[in-house]
């Protein structure tokens, strides 16, 4: 395994990116097939089922007149060793093609939806399906027998995630392809499936746009934990891997409370100004020109618009020490009172303490 990892690292230049590592794996697999095919020219024919087995002695066909009707002549069965070699190749091929699928399954999942049973099934199922297809091939009687046997066994496993079902389907498809000696088809299936899954996972395809991206869910609480700006990178990769978004949220909230208790940080704003209006643009223009004149700093926090109701403008402001809350409200009403039927000021702790002093 060490050598295998070293080879993968060599081809991916040590990159951990899943697409690069997948490409390197398939490249190595192709190289292996090429090398074996070079050393053993008949190998390719075995993979595709087009192999011609040399006859050791002439084969006697069945006499259709004297020996009665049969389904087909038994003379075309390959020698046991040759058959075993072909079957082994099909089984190994199925496992080698499903290994990267299991890696993708493990990678493109969060820890909650990870299911070790499914991972192991992805490796084992195609081997079993390949064996069954090889046995049943061309025999309607065996196929019916198999259906009977399978019907007698109760399968009642419910998979939690619809995507798990798709993985199982893929395992069956690869098993079928290997069983009918169509390993090139199985290879394409494996490659195409893996890259589609990786890309849909990478770009969060199909995400509900009304919900925050999964990456945002992680970054915000973790940045908060690290007391950094939300734009910055998450500081510790191990921390990211260790936490789910929910637990990171809880932890961040706890840290916030601790931070508030231990050290009261000086806030940038000391009040929230709420204005209810029908003329949002005009109100905004007038308010902001006023705030420029009378407060130390301000920031438009939110504009809430609801169909059929008045809009609400919410400003964060830092009122100067020289101005009281009443003076501030009077100034606001004086400038934009005609446009704004409702003006509310929510004073922060620091402002209240300042006025009390």
């Amino acid at each position, binding site marked *: 395994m060490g050598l295998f990892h070293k080879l993968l690292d060599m081809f991916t230049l040590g990159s951990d990116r899943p697409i690069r590592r997948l490409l390197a794996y398939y490249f190595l697999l192709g190289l292996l097939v090429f090398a074996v095919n070079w050393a053993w020219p008949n190998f*390719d024919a075995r993979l595709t089922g087009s192999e011609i087995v040399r006859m050791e*002695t*002439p084969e006697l066909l069945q006499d259709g007149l004297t020996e009665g009707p049969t389904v087909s002549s038994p003379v075309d069965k390959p020698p046991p060793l040759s058959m075993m070699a072909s079957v082994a190749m099909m089984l190994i091929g199925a496992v080698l093609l499903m290994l990267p699928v299991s890696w993708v399954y493990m990678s493109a999942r969060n820890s909650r939806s990870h299911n070790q049973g499914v991972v192991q099934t992805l490796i084992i199922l195609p081997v079993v399906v390949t064996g069954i297809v090889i046995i049943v091939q061309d025999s309607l009687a065996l196929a019916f027998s198999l259906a009977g046997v399978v019907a007698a066994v109760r399968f009642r496993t419910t998979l939690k995630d619809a995507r798990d079902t798709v993985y199982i389907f893929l395992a069956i498809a690869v098993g079928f392809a290997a069983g009918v000696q169509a390993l090139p088809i199985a290879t394409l299936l494996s490659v195409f499936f893996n890259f589609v899954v990786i890309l849909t996972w990478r770009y969060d395809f199909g995400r509900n746009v009304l919900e925050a991206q999964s990456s945002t869910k992680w970054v915000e609480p973790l940045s908060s934990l690290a007391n950094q700006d939300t734009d910055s990178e998450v500081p510790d990769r191990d921390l990211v891997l260790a936490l789910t978004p929910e637990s990171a949220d809880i932890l961040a909230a706890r840290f916030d409370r601790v931070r508030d208790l231990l050290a009261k940080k000086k806030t940038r704003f000391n009040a929230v100004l709420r204005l209810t209006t029908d003329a949002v643009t005009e109100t905004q223009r007038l308010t902001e020109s006023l705030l420029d004149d009378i407060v130390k700093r301000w920031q438009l926090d939110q504009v809430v618009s609801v169909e059929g109701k008045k809009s609400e403008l919410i400003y964060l402001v830092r009122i100067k020490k020289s101005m009281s809350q009443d003076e501030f409200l009077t100034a606001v009403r004086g400038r934009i009172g005609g446009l704004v039927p409702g003006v509310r000021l929510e004073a922060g702790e620091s402002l209240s303490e300042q006025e009390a002093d």
Partner: protein
Amino acid sequence: MRAWLLPMLAVLAAGCGIGKAKRAAADSAAAATRVGRLTDQVGDPRGRTDVPLAKWIMPRDMQEISGIVLAPDGNHVLAHGDERAHLVEIDWRSGMVIKRFNLGETPVKGDFEGITRGGLDYYMLTSKGKIYQFREVEDGKSADYVVIDTKLGDACEFEGIAHDPLTNSLLMACKTPEKSMRDSLVIYRWPLGDNPPPVSRITIALDLVIASNDWDDVRPSDITIDPFTGNIVLITAQQRALIVLSRDGQVVSAGPVPTDIPHTEGIAITRDGLLLISAEAGDAPASITIFRWPHPGRQAAAPAAGVQDSVTDPSQP
């Protein structure tokens, strides 16, 4: 542990070897019996032509058998599959599979409909009018090939091919001709050689071919040349008909195949006066059935030699 394992393996290997040798000897004896029986039957000049003399059940890889052609020695027949250029050589006298080979390392895929031989070269035809020219190779090998595109695929869906030694040309039987010729039986002639004459066509009105038979249509599934008369012999799967045409396109005879064989796909006539018909699997497994061929002089005298002596090359001019 190793001490007793090796002798045990040796005993097993020896057992397998002895088993194989015994089976091979038994097969050889059975084959000799079959050849003897067939030789006796062929030697009877008054034997019926509608009773099969032998019927060999095809192996699994030949269940979709399409065309058949006699090998240069006249005792073997080369059969090919429908969808892949996989060939099997069978000793038609004993029903022994002699060898198998493919066209190309990975057998060429195509809708192969017929095979014929001119000298040592074999020609295999697809329904779209492509001809694969190749030579026989050893058992288990892959044959190299040359593709000749007749570009007649739009004019006709082909179903059979025969080499005419007199004109050194390939006769290609049309199963479904283009619309304007649907009321005719159409055979294309594809000349071979260095400076071949242009491609020609034989068309015979279907009414003349059908004559008093109760067929709606005539769709050939294979074509061959009668080595005794040089006549063109056609077989059809749907109508289960055997049609003999003279070289100038006159209908010599048209009637049902000797016994009711479904899915007839190939036809060959030996110099011993035997008709070989291959049929693909349907309700019954694929087979090659052997009948007497009513060649001129058959009633007058029996063939001087048995089947084993017939080593002449029927396709050589």
